[in-house]
């Protein structure tokens, strides 16, 4: 069972308390964007076998959206952070690099 800490209310939740929301830090394209941008935003996914940044909602708790950094093979959780950001915070990046030194963050990679 996956366990994540909600960065808002501080509750340690198991996954039944949470709703998964898919890949984080997608570039959102709006009206006027071309088909390729919409395809990328709506459907194309990194789907990494490794470090994954993703969205979660504390559905049966404070109700807020947050982000988590997790490894999709080992299930190691590197940390959670508030959703009002365009990139993962430095301490989480450091923890990710400790396990995967080559990892880099690119907002659309």
């Amino acid at each position: 069972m996956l366990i994540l800490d909600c960065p808002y209310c501080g509750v340690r939740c198991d996954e039944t308390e949470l709703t998964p929301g898919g890949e984080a830090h997608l570039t959102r394209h709006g009206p006027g964007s071309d088909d390729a941008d919409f395809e990328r935003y709506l459907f194309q996914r990194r789907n990494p076998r490794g470090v994954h940044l993703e969205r979660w909602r504390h559905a049966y708790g404070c109700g807020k959206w947050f982000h988590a950094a997790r490894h999709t093979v080992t299930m190691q959780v590197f940390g959670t952070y508030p959703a009002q950001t365009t990139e993962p915070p430095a301490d989480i990046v450091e923890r990710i690099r400790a396990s995967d030194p080559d990892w880099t963050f690119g907002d659309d990679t």
Partner: protein
Amino acid sequence: MRRYSAFAIAREALRHHTGWERAWKSAAPKSRYDVVIVGAGGHGLATAYWLGRNHGITNVAVIEKGWLGGGNTGRNTTIIRSNYLQDPSAALYEKSRSLYETMSQDLNYNVMFSPRGVLMLAQTEHEKRGYLRTAHANALQGITTRFIGPAEVKKICPIMNIDGPRYPVLGGLWQERAGTARHDAVAWGYARACSDMGMDIVEQCEVTGVTRDGARVTGLSTTRGDIACDKLGIVVAGHSGRLAEMAGFRLPVESVPLQALVSEPIKPCMDIVVMANTVHGYMSQSDKGEMVIGGGTDGYNAYTQRGSFQHIEETVRALVETFPMISRLKMLRQWGGIVDMTGDRSPILSRTPVENCFINCGWGTGGFKATPGSGWAFAELMATGASPLTAAFGMERFREGRFIDESVAAGVAH
């Protein structure tokens, strides 16, 4: 290849079974092939088989990182049906179902196709309306299905509790010629036939890179050396995103675990397959007597081949309500596979942005039933550049908004 037959069994019995030969040759990779297929699951092997049978292309290798059939092909609950809603799906899945009818004879390999009937329960008014619509669509597509009422459901499957309390059975979509087959045998039978045509099936060989000359694919790097090819077919289910990344494009696919479990064997009590999609559970009884049970996928990406325990609880809880007699059963085994989910829950059989590189993926939770037809159609696409069965399944449909939306038709799509 020595044919299997009743006579062969008698002959071998008389000489202490010394004359059986390996079903397929274990091959080391050559430096070049006309066509290389990545992934020796059912779909990859079926593709190779039909490339040879229908198109005369036999300079083919199927490259597998683990053992043959060890991916989702050997992990699924073997439900075969073709009662889909949308016309392109119905055409492809019915082609496949009909190929299952003769597969054992075609391959000279007993795949134990058992058209015992599949019943999809309607347990809400909404679901009932949905299945009535599917039954009408199937009638127009020439696929024999029927919506049946609760009394007939009880007659076909007496162990079911149809009165609720939470989700009473309001009827069901019944496909009489749907059923199950032995998953390993499908992979083994195709492998044997491919090997017999002179194809190489290379196990324990992981593809680690795709080489290109500009926009055109030229070959692969693997853990057992480089391999050149004219055409490349990527058929790796949950690992499609990885291979696409190696080739240099991105897919509308996410990989999530899906689990199944089996009970201790019990006496025959259920001779059909039942799917209950509202409550997320389905069940059939294997020839050994085990109740074979499956449910929904995890909600988040993972490559763990394990899955989250909450889904086992959810599935079993739902089934116990509809099948009270299973409440005391002990479960023997549980396992997971990594399924490749697309945005519209339909597969991708497609050219790719890389020339001569084709992809067959996105079968998600329900591709075992499609194994022979998928191979048939994908082989045609790879050999000739187009197939009427794959035309609607191109990956460009996500850009163009031409979805083949089956997720409405069945929440769980096995």
